[in-house]
Protein backbone atom coordinates (compact mmCIF):
# COMPACT_ATOMS: atom_id res chain seq x y z
CA UNK A 1 0.00 0.00 0.00
CA UNK A 2 1.48 3.40 -0.93
CA UNK A 3 2.63 5.40 2.08
CA UNK A 4 0.47 8.38 1.12
CA UNK A 5 -2.69 6.31 1.64
CA UNK A 6 -1.80 6.08 5.31
CA UNK A 7 -0.83 9.72 5.71
CA UNK A 8 -3.11 11.73 7.99
CA UNK A 9 -3.00 15.48 8.63
CA UNK A 10 -1.09 17.01 11.52
CA UNK A 11 -3.12 17.36 14.72
CA UNK A 12 -3.20 21.14 14.14
CA UNK A 13 -5.46 20.54 11.14
CA UNK A 14 -7.17 17.35 12.35
CA UNK A 15 -8.49 18.81 15.61
CA UNK A 16 -10.69 21.54 14.02
CA UNK A 17 -11.86 19.02 11.42
CA UNK A 18 -12.98 16.59 14.12
CA UNK A 19 -14.43 19.42 16.22
CA UNK A 20 -16.54 20.66 13.30
CA UNK A 21 -17.63 17.09 12.61
CA UNK A 22 -18.75 16.70 16.24
CA UNK A 23 -20.75 19.92 15.98
CA UNK A 24 -22.36 18.79 12.72
CA UNK A 25 -23.19 15.41 14.26
CA UNK A 26 -24.74 16.99 17.37
CA UNK A 27 -26.81 19.35 15.20
CA UNK A 28 -27.91 16.54 12.88
CA UNK A 29 -28.86 14.35 15.84
CA UNK A 30 -30.81 17.17 17.53
CA UNK A 31 -32.69 17.82 14.26
CA UNK A 32 -33.40 14.11 13.84
CA UNK A 33 -34.69 13.78 17.41
CA UNK A 34 -36.87 16.87 16.98
CA UNK A 35 -38.32 15.63 13.67
CA UNK A 36 -39.06 12.23 15.25
CA UNK A 37 -40.70 13.93 18.22
CA UNK A 38 -42.68 16.23 15.93
CA UNK A 39 -43.74 13.15 13.93
CA UNK A 40 -45.31 11.71 17.05
CA UNK A 41 -47.33 14.93 17.49
CA UNK A 42 -45.13 16.06 20.41
CA UNK A 43 -46.83 13.46 22.61
CA UNK A 44 -44.09 10.83 23.02
CA UNK A 45 -40.82 11.26 24.94
CA UNK A 46 -38.09 13.42 23.39
CA UNK A 47 -35.49 10.69 22.84
CA UNK A 48 -32.30 10.52 20.78
CA UNK A 49 -32.78 6.80 20.12
CA UNK A 50 -33.01 5.87 16.43
CA UNK A 51 -32.78 2.66 14.44
CA UNK A 52 -29.39 1.25 13.45
CA UNK A 53 -30.12 2.16 9.82
CA UNK A 54 -30.86 5.78 10.74
CA UNK A 55 -27.67 5.90 12.84
CA UNK A 56 -25.59 4.71 9.86
CA UNK A 57 -27.25 7.29 7.61
CA UNK A 58 -26.59 10.02 10.16
CA UNK A 59 -22.88 9.13 10.32
CA UNK A 60 -22.71 9.15 6.51
CA UNK A 61 -24.48 12.53 6.26
CA UNK A 62 -22.09 13.96 8.88
CA UNK A 63 -19.18 12.75 6.74
CA UNK A 64 -20.60 14.35 3.59
CA UNK A 65 -21.31 17.65 5.35
CA UNK A 66 -17.83 17.60 6.90
CA UNK A 67 -16.24 17.17 3.47
CA UNK A 68 -18.40 19.95 2.00
CA UNK A 69 -17.36 22.29 4.82
CA UNK A 70 -13.72 21.35 4.22
CA UNK A 71 -14.11 22.19 0.53
CA UNK A 72 -15.87 25.46 1.31
CA UNK A 73 -12.82 26.47 3.33
CA UNK A 74 -10.40 25.20 0.60
CA UNK A 75 -8.66 23.19 3.31
CA UNK A 76 -8.80 20.10 1.09
CA UNK A 77 -6.42 21.93 -1.27
CA UNK A 78 -4.10 22.96 1.54
CA UNK A 79 -3.95 19.41 2.90
CA UNK A 80 -3.53 17.87 -0.57
CA UNK A 81 -0.36 19.98 -0.77
CA UNK A 82 0.90 18.00 2.19
CA UNK A 83 0.14 14.65 0.62
CA UNK A 84 -3.25 14.10 2.28
CA UNK A 85 -5.65 12.31 -0.05
CA UNK A 86 -9.30 13.28 -0.40
CA UNK A 87 -10.33 9.77 0.66
CA UNK A 88 -8.45 10.13 3.93
CA UNK A 89 -10.24 13.42 4.60
CA UNK A 90 -13.63 11.83 3.87
CA UNK A 91 -12.88 9.06 6.38
CA UNK A 92 -11.74 11.61 8.98
CA UNK A 93 -14.88 13.68 8.43
CA UNK A 94 -17.01 10.59 9.14
CA UNK A 95 -15.20 9.68 12.37
CA UNK A 96 -17.15 12.08 14.69
CA UNK A 97 -20.46 10.70 13.41
CA UNK A 98 -19.37 7.09 13.89
CA UNK A 99 -18.00 7.77 17.38
CA UNK A 100 -21.11 9.73 18.36
CA UNK A 101 -23.46 7.00 17.17
CA UNK A 102 -21.39 4.32 18.93
CA UNK A 103 -21.41 6.34 22.15
CA UNK A 104 -25.17 6.84 21.97
CA UNK A 105 -25.71 3.15 21.21
CA UNK A 106 -23.56 2.15 24.19
CA UNK A 107 -25.35 4.61 26.47
CA UNK A 108 -28.69 3.28 25.24
CA UNK A 109 -27.64 -0.35 25.84
CA UNK A 110 -26.30 0.57 29.26
CA UNK A 111 -29.54 2.38 30.20
CA UNK A 112 -31.63 -0.54 28.93
CA UNK A 113 -29.61 -3.07 30.95
CA UNK A 114 -30.00 -0.95 34.11
CA UNK A 115 -33.66 -0.27 33.46
Amino acid at each position, binding site marked *: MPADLLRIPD*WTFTRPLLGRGALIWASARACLAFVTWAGSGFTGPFSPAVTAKAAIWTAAVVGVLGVLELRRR*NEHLLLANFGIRQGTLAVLATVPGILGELALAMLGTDAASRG
Partner: protein
Amino acid sequence: MPLLEADSIGKSYGGRRVLASASLRAPAGSVTALVGANGAGKSTLLAVAAGWRGADTGIVRFDGVSYLSARLATLAACGMFYLPDREILSPGITLRRQLDAIRRRYGSSASAEAVAGDLGLSHCLDALPRRLSGGEMRRAELALAVIRRPKCLLADEPYRGISPLDAELITAVFRRLGAGGCAVVASGHEIGVLSEAADRVVWCADGTTVEYASPALAAADWRFQRGYLGRDPRASEPVRE
Protein backbone atom coordinates in the same frame (compact mmCIF):
# COMPACT_ATOMS: atom_id res chain seq x y z
CA MET B 1 15.26 16.66 -18.57
CA PRO B 2 12.84 19.01 -16.79
CA LEU B 3 11.71 18.21 -13.27
CA LEU B 4 8.07 18.72 -14.26
CA GLU B 5 6.68 18.13 -17.71
CA ALA B 6 3.01 18.26 -18.67
CA ASP B 7 3.00 17.00 -22.24
CA SER B 8 0.30 17.39 -24.92
CA ILE B 9 -2.43 18.20 -22.41
CA GLY B 10 -6.00 18.31 -23.71
CA LYS B 11 -8.91 19.36 -21.53
CA SER B 12 -12.56 20.24 -22.15
CA TYR B 13 -15.21 21.60 -19.82
CA GLY B 14 -18.78 20.74 -20.80
CA GLY B 15 -17.96 20.43 -24.49
CA ARG B 16 -15.81 23.58 -24.56
CA ARG B 17 -12.24 22.74 -25.44
CA VAL B 18 -9.92 24.78 -23.23
CA LEU B 19 -6.66 23.00 -24.02
CA ALA B 20 -6.04 21.12 -27.25
CA SER B 21 -2.38 20.16 -26.96
CA ALA B 22 -0.63 22.32 -24.40
CA SER B 23 2.70 21.56 -22.80
CA LEU B 24 4.48 22.95 -19.78
CA ARG B 25 8.05 22.18 -18.80
CA ALA B 26 9.69 23.36 -15.59
CA PRO B 27 13.40 22.62 -15.23
CA ALA B 28 14.87 22.48 -11.73
CA GLY B 29 16.44 25.77 -10.68
CA SER B 30 14.39 27.93 -13.02
CA VAL B 31 11.46 30.32 -12.81
CA THR B 32 8.94 29.99 -15.64
CA ALA B 33 6.28 32.61 -16.38
CA LEU B 34 3.05 31.18 -17.79
CA VAL B 35 1.18 33.93 -19.61
CA GLY B 36 -1.87 34.12 -21.83
CA ALA B 37 -5.16 35.91 -22.34
CA ASN B 38 -8.13 35.39 -20.02
CA GLY B 39 -9.66 32.00 -20.71
CA ALA B 40 -6.58 30.78 -22.59
CA GLY B 41 -6.27 27.86 -20.18
CA LYS B 42 -3.35 28.92 -17.96
CA SER B 43 -5.07 27.94 -14.73
CA THR B 44 -6.29 24.68 -16.23
CA LEU B 45 -2.80 23.81 -17.45
CA LEU B 46 -1.31 24.56 -14.03
CA ALA B 47 -4.02 22.57 -12.24
CA VAL B 48 -3.45 19.59 -14.55
CA ALA B 49 0.33 19.80 -14.13
CA ALA B 50 -0.14 19.91 -10.34
CA GLY B 51 -2.45 16.89 -10.40
CA TRP B 52 -5.39 18.91 -9.12
CA ARG B 53 -7.44 18.47 -12.30
CA GLY B 54 -7.44 15.44 -14.54
CA ALA B 55 -6.60 15.83 -18.21
CA ASP B 56 -8.57 14.32 -21.10
CA THR B 57 -5.36 13.60 -22.98
CA GLY B 58 -1.66 13.94 -22.29
CA ILE B 59 0.74 12.90 -19.61
CA VAL B 60 2.41 14.47 -16.58
CA ARG B 61 5.98 13.59 -15.67
CA PHE B 62 7.33 14.64 -12.30
CA ASP B 63 10.73 13.85 -10.88
CA GLY B 64 11.30 11.03 -13.35
CA VAL B 65 7.91 9.34 -12.92
CA SER B 66 5.13 9.47 -15.55
CA TYR B 67 1.50 9.79 -14.47
CA LEU B 68 -1.51 9.25 -16.74
CA SER B 69 -3.79 10.57 -14.01
CA ALA B 70 -1.63 12.48 -11.56
CA ARG B 71 -3.04 13.38 -8.13
CA LEU B 72 -1.88 16.39 -6.18
CA ALA B 73 -1.54 14.39 -2.95
CA THR B 74 0.76 11.91 -4.68
CA LEU B 75 2.85 14.59 -6.41
CA ALA B 76 2.93 16.68 -3.22
CA ALA B 77 4.40 13.74 -1.33
CA CYS B 78 7.24 13.85 -3.90
CA GLY B 79 7.85 17.59 -3.51
CA MET B 80 5.14 19.40 -5.51
CA PHE B 81 3.44 22.49 -4.07
CA TYR B 82 0.45 24.08 -5.80
CA LEU B 83 -0.86 27.55 -5.01
CA PRO B 84 -4.19 28.01 -6.81
CA ASP B 85 -5.81 31.38 -7.51
CA ARG B 86 -7.87 31.18 -4.31
CA GLU B 87 -7.06 31.31 -0.63
CA ILE B 88 -5.92 28.01 0.80
CA LEU B 89 -4.81 28.89 4.33
CA SER B 90 -6.98 27.33 7.00
CA PRO B 91 -9.04 30.36 8.12
CA GLY B 92 -9.38 29.38 11.80
CA ILE B 93 -5.74 28.55 12.58
CA THR B 94 -3.05 31.20 13.10
CA LEU B 95 -0.29 31.46 10.53
CA ARG B 96 2.33 30.51 13.16
CA ARG B 97 0.54 27.24 14.01
CA GLN B 98 0.12 26.35 10.35
CA LEU B 99 3.79 27.03 9.60
CA ASP B 100 4.88 25.09 12.71
CA ALA B 101 2.74 22.10 11.69
CA ILE B 102 4.39 22.00 8.26
CA ARG B 103 7.86 22.49 9.73
CA ARG B 104 7.26 19.53 12.07
CA ARG B 105 6.01 17.33 9.25
CA TYR B 106 8.90 18.02 6.89
CA GLY B 107 11.61 18.59 9.48
CA SER B 108 12.44 21.99 8.05
CA SER B 109 15.35 23.77 9.71
CA ALA B 110 13.85 27.22 9.06
CA SER B 111 11.68 28.56 11.86
CA ALA B 112 8.25 30.08 11.33
CA GLU B 113 9.66 33.42 12.54
CA ALA B 114 12.50 33.38 10.01
CA VAL B 115 10.28 32.48 7.05
CA ALA B 116 7.64 35.03 8.05
CA GLY B 117 10.38 37.64 8.53
CA ASP B 118 11.73 37.05 5.01
CA LEU B 119 8.25 37.66 3.61
CA GLY B 120 7.49 40.69 5.77
CA LEU B 121 4.90 38.78 7.77
CA SER B 122 6.34 38.95 11.29
CA HIS B 123 3.40 41.06 12.45
CA CYS B 124 0.90 38.53 11.05
CA LEU B 125 2.26 35.37 12.68
CA ASP B 126 -0.35 35.24 15.43
CA ALA B 127 -3.22 36.52 13.30
CA LEU B 128 -5.95 34.39 11.83
CA PRO B 129 -5.70 34.27 8.01
CA ARG B 130 -9.14 35.83 7.64
CA ARG B 131 -7.70 39.03 9.11
CA LEU B 132 -4.93 39.32 6.49
CA SER B 133 -5.02 41.67 3.52
CA GLY B 134 -4.84 40.31 -0.04
CA GLY B 135 -1.10 40.89 -0.34
CA GLU B 136 -0.40 39.44 3.10
CA MET B 137 -2.51 36.41 2.26
CA ARG B 138 -0.54 35.71 -0.93
CA ARG B 139 2.74 36.07 0.96
CA ALA B 140 1.46 33.89 3.80
CA GLU B 141 0.55 31.15 1.32
CA LEU B 142 4.00 31.47 -0.18
CA ALA B 143 5.43 31.12 3.35
CA LEU B 144 3.76 27.69 3.53
CA ALA B 145 5.57 26.72 0.35
CA VAL B 146 8.90 28.13 1.53
CA ILE B 147 8.81 26.24 4.83
CA ARG B 148 7.81 23.08 2.92
CA ARG B 149 10.94 23.45 0.73
CA PRO B 150 9.29 22.03 -2.41
CA LYS B 151 11.09 20.67 -5.45
CA CYS B 152 8.48 22.33 -7.64
CA LEU B 153 6.16 25.27 -6.96
CA LEU B 154 3.22 26.08 -9.24
CA ALA B 155 1.63 29.43 -8.41
CA ASP B 156 -1.52 30.55 -10.19
CA GLU B 157 -1.77 34.34 -10.49
CA PRO B 158 0.39 35.11 -7.45
CA TYR B 159 0.59 38.82 -8.38
CA ARG B 160 -3.11 39.44 -8.83
CA GLY B 161 -4.45 42.43 -6.91
CA ILE B 162 -1.39 43.13 -4.79
CA SER B 163 0.80 46.19 -4.26
CA PRO B 164 4.18 46.68 -6.00
CA LEU B 165 5.96 46.14 -2.67
CA ASP B 166 4.18 42.80 -2.15
CA ALA B 167 5.01 41.86 -5.74
CA GLU B 168 8.68 42.65 -5.12
CA LEU B 169 8.76 40.39 -2.04
CA ILE B 170 7.08 37.57 -3.96
CA THR B 171 9.52 37.95 -6.88
CA ALA B 172 12.45 37.78 -4.45
CA VAL B 173 11.09 34.52 -3.00
CA PHE B 174 10.61 33.01 -6.47
CA ARG B 175 14.16 33.94 -7.42
CA ARG B 176 15.49 32.52 -4.16
CA LEU B 177 13.56 29.27 -4.59
CA GLY B 178 14.79 29.00 -8.16
CA ALA B 179 18.37 29.63 -7.09
CA GLY B 180 17.95 26.87 -4.50
CA GLY B 181 17.08 24.32 -7.21
CA CYS B 182 13.27 24.54 -7.09
CA ALA B 183 11.32 24.53 -10.37
CA VAL B 184 8.98 27.52 -10.10
CA VAL B 185 6.09 28.27 -12.46
CA ALA B 186 4.03 31.43 -11.95
CA SER B 187 1.10 32.42 -14.11
CA GLY B 188 -0.50 35.81 -14.55
CA HIS B 189 -0.99 38.90 -16.68
CA GLU B 190 1.55 41.13 -14.96
CA ILE B 191 4.09 40.78 -17.74
CA GLY B 192 6.43 43.35 -16.17
CA VAL B 193 6.93 41.62 -12.81
CA LEU B 194 6.72 38.16 -14.36
CA SER B 195 9.50 39.02 -16.82
CA GLU B 196 11.58 40.30 -13.93
CA ALA B 197 11.08 37.09 -11.96
CA ALA B 198 11.27 34.54 -14.77
CA ASP B 199 14.08 32.92 -16.75
CA ARG B 200 11.66 31.36 -19.23
CA VAL B 201 8.24 32.16 -20.67
CA VAL B 202 5.44 29.85 -21.76
CA TRP B 203 2.67 31.54 -23.73
CA CYS B 204 -0.68 29.80 -23.65
CA ALA B 205 -2.92 30.61 -26.64
CA ASP B 206 -5.58 28.85 -28.70
CA GLY B 207 -5.42 25.72 -26.56
CA THR B 208 -1.73 25.23 -27.15
CA THR B 209 1.54 26.68 -25.87
CA VAL B 210 4.67 28.37 -27.18
CA GLU B 211 7.85 28.16 -25.12
CA TYR B 212 10.53 30.86 -25.01
CA ALA B 213 13.97 30.40 -23.48
CA SER B 214 13.88 33.91 -21.99
CA PRO B 215 11.47 36.84 -21.49
CA ALA B 216 13.60 38.83 -23.98
CA LEU B 217 13.00 36.23 -26.69
CA ALA B 218 9.26 36.33 -25.99
CA ALA B 219 9.22 40.10 -26.18
CA ALA B 220 11.09 39.96 -29.49
CA ASP B 221 8.64 37.55 -31.13
CA TRP B 222 6.10 39.42 -33.26
CA ARG B 223 3.45 36.70 -32.74
CA PHE B 224 3.73 37.17 -28.97
CA GLN B 225 3.65 40.94 -29.36
CA ARG B 226 0.61 40.83 -31.58
CA GLY B 227 -1.24 37.91 -29.99
CA TYR B 228 -0.68 38.69 -26.31
CA LEU B 229 0.62 42.21 -25.85
CA GLY B 230 -1.78 43.59 -28.47
CA ARG B 231 0.97 45.45 -30.28
CA ASP B 232 1.68 45.31 -33.96
CA PRO B 233 5.47 45.39 -34.26
CA ARG B 234 5.16 46.86 -37.75
CA ALA B 235 2.99 49.74 -36.61
CA SER B 236 3.28 52.28 -33.82
CA GLU B 237 -0.42 52.07 -32.91
CA PRO B 238 -1.85 49.22 -30.79
CA VAL B 239 -3.81 46.60 -32.71
CA ARG B 240 -7.58 47.11 -32.70
CA GLU B 241 -9.72 44.29 -34.04
